[in-house]
């Protein structure tokens, strides 16, 4: 602003700039929220309408209850099947946990990207050079987030209310809206959690990591609570349990909104408080600005990759071990539930598979998904070396592009294999502690069996990095999320087998409950390797590209 501005100019400019954070953030959040709200609404509609058409007779619904109604293993994974003989009960069971977790991930990403991410990129410096205080800016961001959550609620709610009016589903508007509240509860809590960790950590990656760890722990506690071990009260100890306790459409319990609201309000207030206490760009937690050199890994690009990803990889390893121990320790109970159905028991007996193994076959899918995320993370990490310009410092030295990308791929593949073995081993330890009678060799093989889908994802990711670098994160995560949605959806209701086949996870046999499909695994690894090779070839022939 020049010195010759007219008297009223500073006032208008000030009023404009004083809400700039809220408006810029709000626009982005609301746009994204409306999109996801539509996805959520459509997902709920598909689940309920497919159920209404697939399970018309009371007999068919009773059979469903018998198979899944008291299955501790399934209940540990996606929540207890409550009143699934009704359209409403089934829809809630199939949708609530899935949408809560999807929404929570959305909340964490958006909560950290727009607070810590913008700050990291230095864009807040420009805004805060004006009249806005840090605390005011954080408050404005929270207001924008609230607008986004309202948009998510309105979009999802309208679609569910409309759905409820159809004769097939037939749900009252009040109930439908309470269901929408339950769906938005998870995203709200984790979005604010992301905003809070953005104040604690110093990079977006760290902030997202911390909030994700919170989500992982919430999920793990909910798993224990829902695995029929008499620890049902634990549900009140986890945000994901609170959402479950809301029991929309079946036995609505508004009391569960109390801890949810409390978490959102307290975390929001803490965010604003901490934002005013620290320097711009700095973290609240201690952050050492110097340290003694650790040169061990820093002899080349492979070591550098390991060194940079060490915190992330340790985090993933910890979650794999935690889930492995958990799944293993509830395998016996889960298996008993599965084999309580005489027809299924016969099938498994013929295959020579114990109840626990039958359960672990289903449960290890979660490990395949975790490794899929690890693979996608490796792809985006490699790409970000290029997009930030850091890669230039390496490639301007005597290091070829093929050598750099090749070594990154080898490191990533090694990490995935190690992750698979760790999954198998920790699950075996968990199962052995419960005397589930599961063999260690079987479990290590089952652990390796979950690796090929992630190798395929890695290969596809490298191909995109080579051919369309700016789309690498979007495409890689799209393949992953699509596969995951297909896998979850196709579990109970019938889905066209062509669609099911597009899921990378579907190509993997459910070891140890089914024999490992070596042909399919080989095909996945070979296709992944070929895609990676094509990606490397394309990477050699193109310009380095920034963001």
């Amino acid at each position, binding site marked *: 602003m020049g010195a010759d501005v007219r008297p009223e100019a500073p006032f208008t400019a000030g009023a404009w700039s004083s809400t700039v954070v809220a408006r810029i953030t709000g626009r982005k959040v609301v746009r994204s929220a409306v999109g996801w709200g539509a996805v959520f609404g459509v997902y709920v509609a598909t689940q309920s309408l497919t159920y209404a058409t697939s399970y018309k007779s009371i007999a068919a619904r009773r059979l469903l209850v018998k198979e899944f109604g008291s299955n501790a293993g399934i209940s540990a994974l996606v929540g207890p099947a409550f009143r699934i003989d009704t359209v409403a009960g089934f829809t809630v069971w199939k949708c609530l946990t899935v949408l809560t977790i999807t929404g929570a991930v959305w909340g964490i990403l958006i909560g950290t990207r727009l607070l810590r991410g913008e700050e990291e990129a230095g864009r807040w410096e420009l805004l805060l050079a004006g009249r806005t205080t840090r605390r005011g800016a954080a408050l404005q961001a929270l207001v924008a987030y609230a607008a986004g959550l309202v948009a998510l609620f309105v979009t999802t709610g309208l679609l569910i209310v409309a759905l409820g009016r159809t004769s097939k589903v037939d749900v009252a508007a009040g109930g439908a809206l309470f269901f929408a509240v339950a769906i938005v509860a998870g995203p709200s809590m984790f979005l604010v959690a992301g905003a809070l960790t953005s104040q604690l950590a*110093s*990079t977006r990656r760290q902030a997202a990591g911390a909030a994700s760890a919170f989500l992982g722990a919430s999920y793990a506690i909910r798993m224990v609570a829902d695995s029929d071990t008499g620890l049902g009260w634990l549900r009140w100890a986890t945000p994901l349990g609170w959402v479950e306790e809301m029991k929309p459409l079946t036995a609505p319990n508004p009391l569960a909104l109390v801890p949810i609201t409390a978490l959102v309000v307290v975390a929001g207030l803490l965010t604003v408080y901490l934002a005013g206490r620290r320097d711009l760009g700095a973290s609240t937690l201690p952050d*050492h*600005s*110097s*340290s*003694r*050199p*650790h*040169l061990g890994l*820093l*002899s*080349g*690009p492979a070591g*550098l990759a390991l*060194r*940079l990803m060490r915190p992330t990889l340790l985090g993933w390893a910890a979650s794999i071990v935690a889930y492995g121990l958990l799944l293993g320790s509830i395998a016996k109970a889960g298996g008993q539930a599965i084999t309580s159905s005489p027809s299924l028991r016969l099938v498994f007996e013929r295959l020579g598979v114990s109840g626990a193994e039958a359960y672990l076959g289903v449960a290890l899918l979660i490990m395949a998904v975790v490794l899929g995320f690890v693979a996608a993370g490796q792809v985006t990490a490699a790409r970000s070396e290029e997009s*930030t*310009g*850091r890669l*230039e*410092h*390496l*490639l*301007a*030295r*005597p*290091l*070829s*592009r093929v050598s750099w990308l090749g070594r990154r791929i080898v490191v990533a593949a090694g990490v995935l294999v190690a992750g698979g073995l760790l999954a198998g081993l920790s699950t075996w330890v968990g199962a052995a502690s419960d005397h589930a009678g599961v063999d260690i060799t079987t479990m290590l093989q089952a652990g390796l069996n979950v690796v090929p889908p992630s190798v395929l994802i890695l290969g596809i990711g490298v191909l995109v990095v080579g051919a369309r670098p700016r789309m690498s994160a979007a495409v890689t995560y799209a393949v992953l999320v699509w596969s995951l949605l297909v896998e979850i959806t196709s579990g109970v209701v019938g889905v066209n087998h062509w669609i099911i086949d597009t899921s990378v996870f579907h190509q993997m046999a459910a070891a140890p409950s089914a024999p490992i499909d070596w042909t399919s695994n080989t095909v996945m690894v070979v296709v992944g390797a070929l895609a990676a090779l094509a990606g490397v070839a394309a990477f050699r*022939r*193109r*310009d*380095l*590209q*920034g963001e």
Partner: protein
Amino acid sequence: MGRFAQRSLLERGRRLSTPAIRTFALSKHFGATQALRDLDLEVGEGEVVGCLGPNGAGKTTLIRLLLGLLIPSGGRGEIFGLDCHRQTVEAHRRLAYVAGEASLWPTLTVSETLHLLGQVQGHVDPDYRDVLVERFDLDVSKKVRALSKGNRQKLILVAALMTRPDLLILDEPTSGLDPLMEQAFRKCIGEARERGQSVLLSSHILSEVEVLCDRIGILREGVLVEIGTMAQMRHLSAFLVEATFDGAVPDLSQVPGVSMVEVLGAAVKCQVRGSVEPLLRALAGSGVRELLSREPSLEELFLAHYGAAPTREIGSPDGG
């Protein structure tokens, strides 16, 4: 005389040995934007060449092509006779590069970064590295995250210089450096020149290029519009005349060869191209009290090339 002898020796040497950099009709376009057009450039062994041009003139594009980070749309480039695109690893063994923007790994410390980059380079002069760390006043235990922009720039300068490469490619290497560090940088380039290292220096700091470089090239809209020694460039361009008058200031704007006439009270400032005679004739008898004439600085040469005509934004979309 000594300088002349040195230069002719250099000329002879250049003809005998392979040039450090040679490009043949090197071109690059990004979509419809032509960032570099049919560029022919040669940097001899032991020669220090400066590269000037406004933002988006194609300086960074040229450097990124030489490093094999970009793939040429046409023509080719060579580093010591090695193809920039096909023989990158061999070529890079003999060069070091300093980027204009030092985006490094924030969690590594200064000494870790130097170790890593040295390992990837393959050879380092450890004694010289220690001298450089001292000279640039770097705190090696600091994490990159905690460094200022200037300090990060110093870090990548040290990382490049410590390998004692045959060729230094520097893309605005002193952005963010304070005058003291700028001095240290000039000392390093002087040392490199004495050791017979070649340098390609792209810069905005004209005085720096003027002092350091044997030859200077000017890029404009992807075309090398001028290249030569300072002496040759001066010859091509105008010189400045300032005259102060006792009486009325005569109108000089119509005099042949005179341009950019500025009247400041009783004084006139103008540029003269070609013969000075028409101007002298116009001034004669108009009561000149003072007459000053001097060679233009590089800054003025630069403005003469770019000041008048508006330049379109051309260059790498990645910040060329």
